């Protein structure tokens, strides 16, 4: 049977395409509905095509404020957790010190613990300390749970690094600072970048922990959640689509640059 034969030969491709479709379909729906003009307050059924929402993305009260707050928190949480996490990763791999084993396992706890438990206990802590809930409590909470992801990503990279590379640098007249800047950091950077990206994504879309510790502050995920009860403005789809496109562009550009670098090295 020629059809069966064709099927057998292309099974891997078909499976791949099906998986891709499964992953991308939700994004496509979001994208399509960002061009919808719904009749009621809920953007759940297709009515007609319109670019109204794209022309006025901040047309919904408070939405762009919450978006900018989320981006700020994500940025600072990324910087904080990446700097701390990279240092912890280096310390755990390179040095032997007391409580190293304990720290090694404690650092994974935020990953393993149910988020809602962590959120509740953090709230208890903040309340007992008499802390004002808001930007700072959210930021502290985000840095805390992003840390374990950064440590994991950077640790894997540092562990696979040949310590002789740093010895070679020292042997070639690079002092401690130069060795770190010229050899250690560039080689560890893919791990650090992966950790930073992960931290940004995790912080930006976190809802549970943020919701517990935000007080009266509203981040973008909280805004989406809140509006979903009263009606979903099309602008939410616009923001979602824009973020998806930005992410795709960034990844594609990264790949493109990496490929070009590789090709120029060959030439």
């Amino acid at each position, binding site marked *: 049977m020629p059809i069966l034969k064709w099927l057998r030969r292309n099974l891997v491709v078909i499976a791949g395409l099906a998986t891709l479709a499964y992953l991308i379909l939700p994004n496509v729906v979001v994208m399509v509905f960002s061009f919808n003009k719904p009749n009621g307050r809920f953007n759940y059924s297709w009515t007609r095509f319109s670019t109204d929402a794209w022309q006025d993305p901040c047309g919904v009260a408070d939405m762009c404020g919450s978006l900018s707050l989320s981006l700020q928190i994500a940025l600072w949480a990324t910087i904080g957790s990446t700097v701390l996490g990279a240092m912890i990763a280096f310390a755990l791999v390179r040095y032997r010190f007391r409580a190293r084993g304990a720290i090694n396992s404690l650092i994974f706890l935020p990953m393993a613990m149910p988020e809602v438990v962590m959120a509740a206990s953090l709230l208890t802590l903040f309340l007992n300390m008499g802390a004002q809930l808001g930007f700072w409590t959210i930021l502290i909470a985000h840095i805390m749970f992003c840390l374990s992801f950064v440590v994991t990503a950077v640790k894997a990279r540092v562990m696979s690094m040949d310590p002789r590379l740093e*010895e*070679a640098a020292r*042997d*070639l*007249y690079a*002092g401690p600072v*130069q060795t770190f800047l*010229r050899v250690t950091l560039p*080689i560890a950077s893919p791990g650090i970048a992966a950790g930073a990206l992960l931290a940004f994504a995790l912080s930006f879309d976190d809802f549970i922990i943020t919701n517990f510790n935000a007080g009266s502050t509203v981040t973008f995920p909280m805004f989406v959640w809140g509006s979903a009860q009263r009606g979903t403005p099309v602008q939410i789809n616009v923001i979602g689509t824009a973020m998806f496109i930005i992410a795709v562009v960034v990844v594609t550009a990264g790949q493109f640059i990496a490929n070009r670098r590789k090709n120029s090295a060959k030439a």
Partner: protein
Amino acid sequence: MTDSTAGGDVRLTGISKTYGSFTAVHPLELTVPQGSFFALLGASGCGKTTTLRMIAGLEEPTTGTVFLGDKDVTDLPPYKRPVNTVFQSYALFPHLNVTENIAFGLRRRGIKSVKKQVDDMLELVQLGDFAHRKPHQLSGGQQQRVAVARALINHPQVLLLDEPLGALDLKLRRQMQLELKRIQTEVGITFVHVTHDQEEAMTMADTVAVMNGGRVEQLGAPADLYENPKTTFVANFLGTSNLIEAEVAEKNGDDLVVTAGGAKLRLPGGRCSAPASSGGKLLVGVRPEKISLAHRDDEGAIAEGRNRVSGRIVDSSFIGVSTQYLVDSPAGKGLSVYEQNVDRRAGLLPGAEVVLHWNPAHTFGLDAAQAIDAGVEKVEDAA
């Protein structure tokens, strides 16, 4: 920082290294003359790499002093020593291309125009076409040459090589041995080369220091070490030696006469490194390639005055240029004999009764109070 012209030997005085209760290097006196190709040879764990790293400054000596020329560099960090290292497995910077790897040392010392020097180095190691490749795009041999260029461009007073050829296959290794030797002759810098490969050490070095258990067993020119080993370790580690337990029978002028398994053997008194008195024990050694084999029936044809030991062939293996025989005799079991394959030797098959004979001048004597099999390569070491 690197006045390469200002001469200087490498002098280690009383240098030692201990890790906790383990002594990696026992207090050591060693002088490497300027401009020489010096090899530290020994099995893994003998302290040779630790010694090298102490010269580089990557390891802090427990006791002792490192001198470069007249300057005490013991307390200088590696980046302040006019010494560069070619690391085992090269340690090339994976994120930099060949040019930037080679220029690394110059740039760190604030030299801006590196192009000319890098080009010269690329030419020296014959890698001109690969300047823009990344290390992972190079073969093992090419990586090795980049590592050499990266170190040499700094004109160090001393170049340290830590098993630089260990990762290469046999043929490439031979080629790189000659290449390194050529480069050393060309640049005239002192090379200190650490290796476990005795053939490599003998091919390349002017002077070889054989290390064992954190100590230098013997130091000398390759030929001298090979012909006149002073200990059983050196005798066995450098090539193969037949060591026979013997008893001193008499002193006959300059010669010593010893008995072993009923055979009377002679050796020059000057080649015996142990005190020999009548009735005393001695280890008598002879290299396998110095021995000739004769059939028992042809014993009459052997010239007078040669040392003879009779035995039986237990094994023979043909390896192209030569055939290696293993012979059991009353004097000792498993004696090796290498015969050049000049003529086909009929009848020299396992089981044949033979006579081993050699010129007494090729015999050496060692102190019997040491392990007879020290330095013999075990199967697991060779892997």
